[in-house]
């Protein structure tokens, strides 16, 4: 069973490595959107510092949105998705593998880039660390919840826009606790509460999202 999980993750990572431009567009989109804010708002440090968490988090949501439509679409178009459905393995497990690979490709780079970008906003060391930790807990949720939306809109015309409308509202709790955690830590209130809530959301998403996406895939492929 874990061999198949490893196989799916390896497969998707290999494919991503042979399509590097797809990976890089997401990361560059994130970098550019975040960098536009200091340019647009001006160099007032206090103002920038107070909006840093929100800006980075919203940009992360949009960047992860951008890569969602590709999560299942390529496999759907070349028929490998129906072969996955017919493989003698639990579908939810394979979906989990795909989501994990998707997070490594499109979520993890955001986590690693975030401290660099946070510097532009004059975030302190604690703030930068908290930004990374909240993103580390939050971006997997974005991939997991996004997978449900991507599976539901598979093969539909204008699926890319539809998936945003469907999934962005579901991202709101992650955004609130993610950005809130960073702000709480900057203002010295401590972010344990925010982190534990993010962790709880992550566990819930880990449990339920693969099952929901698997069910949605079965409907979409039909």
């Amino acid at each position, binding site marked *: 069973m874990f*061999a*198949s999980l490893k*196989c*799916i993750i390896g*497969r998707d990572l*290999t*494919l991503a490595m*042979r*399509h590097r431009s797809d990976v890089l567009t997401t990361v560059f989109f994130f970098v550019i959107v975040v960098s536009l804010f200091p340019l647009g708002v001006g160099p007032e440090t206090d103002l920038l510092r107070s909006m840093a968490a929100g800006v980075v988090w919203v940009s992360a949501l949009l960047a992860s949105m951008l890569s969602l439509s590709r999560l299942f679409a390529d496999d759907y178009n*070349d*028929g*490998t998705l*129906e*072969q*996955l*459905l*017919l*493989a*003698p*393995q*639990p579908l939810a497990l*394979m979906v989990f593998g795909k989501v994990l690979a998707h997070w490594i490709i499109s979520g993890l780079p955001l986590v690693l880039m975030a401290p660099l970008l946070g510097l532009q906003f004059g975030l302190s060391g604690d703030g930068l660390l908290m930004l990374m930790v909240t993103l580390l807990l939050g971006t997997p949720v974005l991939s997991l919840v996004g997978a449900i939306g991507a599976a539901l809109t598979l093969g539909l015309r204008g699926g890319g826009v539809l998936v945003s409308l469907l999934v962005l509202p579901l991202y709101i709790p992650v955004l609130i606790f993610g950005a809130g955690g960073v702000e709480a830590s900057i203002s010295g209130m401590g972010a344990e509460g925010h982190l534990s809530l993010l962790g709880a959301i992550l566990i819930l998403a880990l449990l339920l999202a693969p099952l929901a996406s698997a069910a949605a895939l079965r409907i979409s*492929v*039909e």
Partner: protein
Amino acid sequence: MLNIANLECVRGDRQLFSGLSFSLEEGSLLHVHGANGSGKTTLLRAIAGLVLPEDGEIEWHGKSTRKLGEDFNRELIYMGHHYGLKFELTGYENLRIFAQLGGFDITERKVEMALKSMGLARCFELPVKVLSQGQKKRVSLARLLLQRSRLWILDEPFVALDVAGVSMLLEMIKEHVADGGMVILTTHQEVDVEVGKLQHLHLGEH
């Protein structure tokens, strides 16, 4: 033993077929005939479990295939209109993924042999996207040699194959049926499949 009872499939608002019943024994081949749009592909996908039939039962050795789930999938190779291959990966990588997901291990040597006997000895290291249509088809057909599944469901398997490819596939089908396997196929090409037990099913005539 595959048993289909009272199967009904609907696509959109249109009823494709209803009350369809047949059974397929070990060592036999079912050739599904029908005009375009008569529901051949839907029937094949329903048997494979990709389409939920409106009504009726599909049973494998007396048990519903839906309930068997993965156990039924292990007995089955389905090949649809798509090749089911990742074009960025090589033929070897593609076949190895099929094997790992199928739950069995294959050696590099075995894959090499399979690709060689499909006439693809030189394409071992090439990504599938640079191969011709017929060669892609051959790569996907190489699965039939590697995977030991009893039921083959082949939707238009002869498309894009050259004369040598067609006769090779026919040979593989004959061998599989002689070994006690089952094959369900559709084709518009005139091919003589002379095997032990040959059944015909005509869709869209009622």
